[in-house]
């Protein structure tokens, strides 16, 4: 398995953000993380990136145990955060070059990968544009291009399609499917149920616990029930 999580717990001060979460993603698998705001989706992804230390339980990413082997796991992870994490004053190509080099690729390989990414994400015509001047959709493409330039074994996407128009979302999903076909394990958090339906399986996070796991079609009825209950409470 590329991602193995067993009994993961994480606390913000004394409040549990994650409580006994267990999950696995195989190479080439796409798992969706569903859940209300504050359910623990971003926390889980940040732990898998090595940005947060797990409070309890064990986490393995690309065969490396976190946080112990975090430094070795780094080059195997691609991560797109909600904030994108791009340098707005750098040009498109400069961002791509910097991140590709930062993942440890040599100069010759970097040149090749940057060119490849520019074409794959239709960024070639915008390579000299300042990143800050790009629209949300284009920035999203660039963030994805930066996260994938080193061909990671694990791709973690935190609401990567939020705020995108349908065409842009379709393109993101095309890339996700290509990456899965390449063998990358993908974990994507989303609020869109139609996107959850595209995943191989879905984990429904509720108050830091996995409330349901399986194919979306199998979970659909219980999710409907949950939403109705939540609406009733509201």
């Amino acid at each position, binding site marked *: 398995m590329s991602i193995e999580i067993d009994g993961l717990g994480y606390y913000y001060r004394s409040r549990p953000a994650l409580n006994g979460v267990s999950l696995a993603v195989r190479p080439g698998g796409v798992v969706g993380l569903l859940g209300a705001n504050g359910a623990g989706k971003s926390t889980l992804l*940040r732990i898998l990136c090595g*940005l947060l230390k797990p409070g309890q339980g064990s986490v393995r990413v690309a065969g490396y145990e976190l946080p112990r082997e975090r430094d070795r796991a780094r*080059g195997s992870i691609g*991560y797109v*955060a909600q904030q994108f*994490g*791009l340098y707005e004053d750098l040009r498109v190509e400069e961002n791509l070059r910097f991140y590709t080099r*930062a*993942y*440890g690729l040599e100069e010759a390989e970097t040149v090749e990968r940057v060119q490849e990414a520019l074409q794959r994400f239709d960024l070639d015509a915008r390579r000299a544009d300042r990143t800050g001047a790009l629209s949300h959709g284009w920035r999203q493409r660039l963030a994805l291009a930066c996260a994938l330039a080193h061909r990671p074994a694990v791709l973690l996407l935190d609401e990567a399609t939020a705020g995108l128009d349908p065409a842009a979302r379709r393109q993101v999903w095309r890339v996700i499917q290509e990456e899965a076909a390449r063998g990358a394990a993908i974990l994507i958090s989303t609020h869109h149920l139609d996107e959850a339906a595209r995943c191989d399986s879905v984990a429904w996070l509720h108050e830091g616990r996995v409330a349901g796991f399986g194919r979306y079609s199998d979970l659909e009825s219980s999710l409907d029930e949950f939403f109705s209950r939540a609406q009733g409470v509201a």
Partner: protein
Amino acid sequence: MTFGRQLLLVAGKELLHLRRDPYTLVLTVALPLVQFLLFGYALDTRVHDVPTAIQNLDGERFSRTLVDQFRNSAVFRLTHRADSEEELLGMLRRGDVRVAVQIPPHYSANAFYHRPVSVRVWIDGSDAALAGQAVFAAQSIGLEQAVSMTVGGTPAARLPLQLQPEVLFNPAGRSANYFVPALVANLVEMTTLLLVALSLVKERERGTLDQLRITNIRLGALISGKLVAGAAMGLGTGCVLTILMRLVFGIAIGGDFWLYCLALLAFLPPALGLGLFVTAAARNQAQALQLTYLLLLPCIMLSGFVFPREAMPAAVAAFSMLIPTTWSLDIMRGIVLRGAGWADLAPSFGMLALLGVVYLSAGALHLRRRFL
């Protein structure tokens, strides 16, 4: 809703923001408080306790009285005794003392027989304000002594004691000579500190820090990379300001050029360390700027940049030893104005190096704790 109610609503909300953000609240209160205490307590434009060396070549009663007058003066503090003129001038060049007094041989005998005598007083002119007050105080002592000697004489009689103050290093008392070299040191440190202080905070605000932390770039390399960039900018600023100092203000480097270059390098580590502290502590760029200002205030006020450290209360003067600028200014004025060499300035270089190691290590540890 009336205007008054609208106003109260907005004012209430603003106070709520401050209450919810204790960090900003502390900074908002701390800044004026520090300024208030600095100006009210620590800073004094009257000079006192100026370190003074004396060479008494006479050693008899009258000369001992003169020494006592210097000792009892509020302006001078006798800290050193010298056996030769070279030793006296060496102390001045090193910055050990600011005033050196030489009482000639047979001073007492000449004074007893009302024969004219002259006492030489050398004053470090690299601080124009201090030099002016020291000259005045020395002349007052000389005048008092002379009057005592001539009691009973004629009004037209020439005073038997001539106290000859000689201002060294900046005889014209030019302010630019005093401030400009110090400004070079201060601006190098300020530029470096500010760049480092803003660097990681900016990354955190933009969300690029998380992205960087999952790349192969280690935290150590990330911090070091930022320090190198900050140091390069600080050094660049120093070079430009040095050229301007020479071309615009006509101030030449009196000492060794390479020692001056070494000094510019030595200013960087403590500033980098303080920058790391700020960047680890601040949550956003506005806070980083406020914290930087909080640090720079004592650097300017307590380092001897404007107000002589000799005029500060002992506790404040002791605290100022922890401020890198205190030593940078000493080095800068030493090399540029007094022509001091490595041997003269080694203690100040040593203190800067020590502060550099301490601040850099503490800053890096603080940052590591914050991010790991």
